């Protein structure tokens, strides 16, 4: 075996080392030493994230073409890292609370394992590795969803997640076996040459797609989303809605562009309809929600539809637009979840939208950040979300998908309605009797919110970011 190949896996190895270290530290350290656990874990993760941004010369395929590391995969992993870091920061206070403080080591180690799985999904150049990555990412997530194990809803979320996850991976494996039967290999590069629109391959593709559709929460694989998002601890919900979704989108784009490019005509139609239905259904459900986490579950379903819209175009421009969209979605959604986490911590777990009534009066800064996040998600200029949607629409319009763009635009109008409901709650509605009073957000969460706000502004106003992604997206 050629051990040089491990040099390509710098980020994965770093993650494993960090995981082992934290695991040992958590297990063997004295109670006194554990006081510093969070600080150490987060700072080490910051180092790992920083390492990811260092340029590496080890790009290319490794392990006989099973694994690939390119500038684009490195960039995508960096996106996942930044999002995970923000989630860590936002969860810090919740993890220090009574019920969870003795288990916080678990939270970090389990999250890192899921992240490792996502790395493999992004870097996979072989369906077997992709599947292993997905499983590594999915199973521990169920533990995270059930992390508040004494809460009924959290336990329900864990159970639902693991059941549906097992079910979807079964279907995906089923699909992969079809593909293997039809093409005789699992290597991306070997498959492309033989892919044709034969029924076996199409069936295989659809079932495989269902597996990723579950992760992306596309309609009709989305039904678990609201229940799990609502029950899971807020930090985990944020992680599910951004990191898990992002990794699935990246994996999907590679599979589509690298393997299924020859049958683009087939999947283009599937994605066309699914994106329309996903955006619309997500919006229709979001309107009715009274619980803010359920609300963001449906909002994230509809956002996933936009991600799909970027994939459909099948051009480098579409891919750039989609990665850019995810980057903006990351900061906007995490900013919203940061505020939710802060409010929830002070309202004893109350996550109804009405808990936000009068937030502007009691905590103007949080209300302002929430407003930024919601405006960005809704695509109001000049916030970053406007540009990301704009680029996606433009990429689609250049491919002549005018009908799709029209429907998506119509949906954007509808989405504004429910996004503005949150603004209305915060700024206009009178506070309820036992409303939260003015409080101080913990420092970790503050840092995370600052990162998000800077992200929303800088990415929106610096076209250099978009240009950088554009440079990477060639030669996928």
């Amino acid at each position: 075996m050629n051990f040089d190949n491990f040099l390509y896996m710098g980020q994965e190895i770093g993650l494993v080392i960090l995981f082992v270290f934290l695991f040992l530290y958590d297990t063997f350290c004295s109670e006194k030493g554990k006081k510093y656990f969070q600080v150490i874990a987060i700072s080490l993760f910051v180092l790992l994230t920083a390492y990811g941004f260092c340029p590496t010369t080890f790009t290319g395929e490794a392990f006989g073409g099973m694994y690939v590391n390119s500038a684009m995969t490195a960039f995508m992993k960096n996106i996942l890292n930044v999002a995970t870091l923000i989630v860590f920061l936002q969860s810090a206070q919740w993890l220090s609370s009574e019920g969870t403080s003795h288990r916080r080591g678990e939270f970090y180690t389990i999250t890192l394992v899921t992240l490792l799985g996502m790395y493999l999904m992004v870097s996979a150049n072989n369906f077997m590795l992709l599947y292993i990555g997905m499983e590594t990412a999915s199973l521990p997530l169920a533990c995270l969803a059930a992390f508040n194990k004494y809460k009924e809803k959290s336990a329900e979320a864990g159970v639902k997640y693991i059941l549906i996850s097992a079910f979807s991976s079964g279907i995906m494996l089923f699909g992969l076996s079809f593909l293997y039967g039809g093409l005789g290999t699992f290597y991306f590069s070997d498959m492309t040459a033989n892919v044709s629109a034969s029924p076996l391959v199409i069936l295989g593709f659809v079932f495989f797609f269902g597996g990723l559709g579950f992760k992306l929460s596309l309609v009709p694989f989305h039904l678990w989303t609201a229940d799990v998002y609502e029950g899971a601890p807020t930090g985990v919900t944020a992680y599910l809605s951004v990191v898990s979704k992002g990794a699935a989108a990246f994996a999907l784009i590679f599979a589509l562009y690298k393997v299924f490019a020859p049958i683009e005509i087939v999947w283009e139609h599937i994605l066309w309809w699914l994106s329309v239905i996903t955006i619309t259904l997500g919006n229709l459900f979001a309107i009715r929600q009274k619980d803010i986490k359920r609300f963001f579950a449906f909002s994230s379903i509809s956002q996933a539809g936009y991600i799909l819209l970027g994939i459909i175009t099948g051009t480098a421009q579409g891919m750039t637009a989609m990665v850019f969209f995810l980057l903006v979605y990351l900061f906007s959604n995490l900013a919203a979840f940061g505020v939710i986490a802060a409010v929830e911590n002070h309202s004893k777990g109350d996550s109804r939208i009405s808990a936000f009534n009068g937030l502007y009066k009691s905590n103007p800064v949080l209300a302002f950040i929430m407003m930024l996040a919601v405006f960005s998600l809704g695509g109001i200029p000049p916030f970053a979300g406007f540009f990301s949607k704009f680029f996606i629409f433009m990429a689609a319009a250049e491919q002549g998908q005018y009908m799709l763009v029209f429907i998506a635009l119509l949906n954007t109008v509808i989405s504004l309605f429910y996004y503005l409901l949150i603004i209305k709650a915060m700024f206009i509605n009178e506070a309820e009797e036992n409303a939260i009073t003015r409080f101080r957000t913990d420092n970790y969460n503050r840092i995370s919110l600052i990162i998000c706000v800077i992200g929303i502004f800088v990415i929106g106003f610096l076209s250099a970011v978009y240009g950088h992604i554009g440079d990477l997206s060639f030669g996928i």
Partner: protein
Amino acid sequence: MEYSLFIVVIPFLLFLFLGLLGTKLKSIVAGIIGTIGMGICAVLAYTVAYQYFFGIGKTNGEWVKQIPLNFEWLRFTENLHIDLGVLLDPISVMMLVVITTVSLMVHIYSLGYMKGETGFQRYYAFLSLFSFSMLGLVVATNIFQMYIFWELVGVSSYSLIGFYYTKPSAVAASKKAFIVTRFADLGFLIGILILSFYTKTFDFGLLTADHASLVTTSFAGGTFMGLSIATWALALIFMGGAGKSAMFPLHIWLPDAMEGPTPVSALIHAATMVVAGVYLVARLFPVYIFAAPDVLEMIAFVGAFTALFAAVIAITQTDIKRVLAFSTISQIAYMMVALGVSGYGDHEGLGYMASMFHLFTHAFFKALLFLGAGSVIHAVHSNEMSAMGGLHKYMKITSITFFIACLAIAGIPPFSGFFSKDEILAAAFHHQPVIFWTLWVVAGLTAFYMFRLYFSIFWNTPKSPKGDLVHSASLQGVGGEHHKPHESPAPMTIPLIILAVFSIFTGLIPFADFISSDNIPFHTHIDWTVAIMSIAVAVIGITIAFMLYFKDSKQPARIAQAMGGFYQAALHKFYMDEIWMWVTQTVIFRYICEPIKWFDRHIIDGSMNGLAWITQKSSAGIKGLQSGKVQFYAWVFIFGSIVIAALVLFL
């Protein structure tokens, strides 16, 4: 030369700083910080000018455009991208010097003039914002950047005119200025879009290169309503310039803009913003002359008419700031005319050079006039000429500097205005006799109304009884106490003296060595035929003013009586405000806005409400899907996959 960026950035940072934290500072501290910042900008601008004109600016005997910085801000497609950058060429460097100098003077002056005003910090924040916008405008590398800063200039002007926002007239004036210029800018924007649609670029360098060959070729003879499309585009762009530079009939906002603090009028409504239109035409001059010479012809006639029209009105006004406002309109029109009659290259391009020359000299003496007027208003607490008179013995510095500025604007040698005005008249003389004679008359009128102003303020005797003075003072809200007028404090008189020095000597600069239509230096000499004619008419104007206004006399009233209707019409600014009122209220509001309103109410709102209704209904209809049962979820999952596969396979 990268440091030239700081000239633009420093005012912006000052704006942020003073705007956000200004109220936490003592007002005088905020003022001094703003002034020092502007001072640094001025020093940088002078360094840039020195380096450019005496160092790197000239290659092979030709001034070249330098772009030390260019940054791609928004990129939409290969062709459509919006850049922000710094462009240095003779006219932009000259503008940097003008803006920073006048702005610095106004900053210093305001320390005295605005002392004790509420919102002092806000005032300085907006001054910084304005300086930032104006500087960004002149160094724009492309027409879209110019448009962005053009609008920023409009906004900061709006907020400064409305500085006394408790005064209804100030609020009305700020709205009027904003709406009128915005209306003109609509034309500007459409013009930009047409121009860039055909040429596929916003970049000034590309647009003007090679005798604007890009523009002349890319339009390829398209016509619309009998005129070529290039003509339409450039005429619309000129519309934007006409709005900002107060050309007839879009001049109506400028006199009202005098509601702002006087130093603001000096900076924005005399020296810098209002010449943006002239600068715009100068910036695109090769495009105008090669792609649409007919538009240039139109500019010449519009300018000549505006110059005469405004000069006639200026004679009848009694509010000293309004006299200066109309004088500004008239002088800017002069610059426009010069551009309009100019040819390209060498002596043919004399008009271009003269226009920029006059812009340069005018900025200083007109700022001086306004600041002098401010000093007078500061002393007597009134804008009305009738409340003034005999002030020379109380405020000698103001009087003398004002006198210098009057001589400069009247075109008496060796003051600066003489040289620049002479070049304009010479350019017109060789091009269009009609325009030349119009300008010649205007020159006489200018000398007359400026000295009418001067003599009425500083000599003569106050016409109205003292009670009126107190009355007008209390109207101004500046303490009703009556006291003897006295000279203004040092922060106000020092800028007056500095600007007076500028007004005397800037005319001696051999301008043609630095600025010319084709960027190749040439030599000019004074055309004595023209010069003698213009001096003669100026002297006549001054003499008549001396006879009528040096001492109190009944003559002016009698002449006004004799003029009858014409005098009344001029006094009421030829009823332009009323005509615009009629056009907007009756024509636009009733016959255009009403139907649109109906359409909006019924069709647009109706369809939106319909969309909302459908959304709500369908949302309610499908809520059962989300049952919470995992079995059902799994069933949808597998059934969904099968349906998708079936649809793909069998359709």
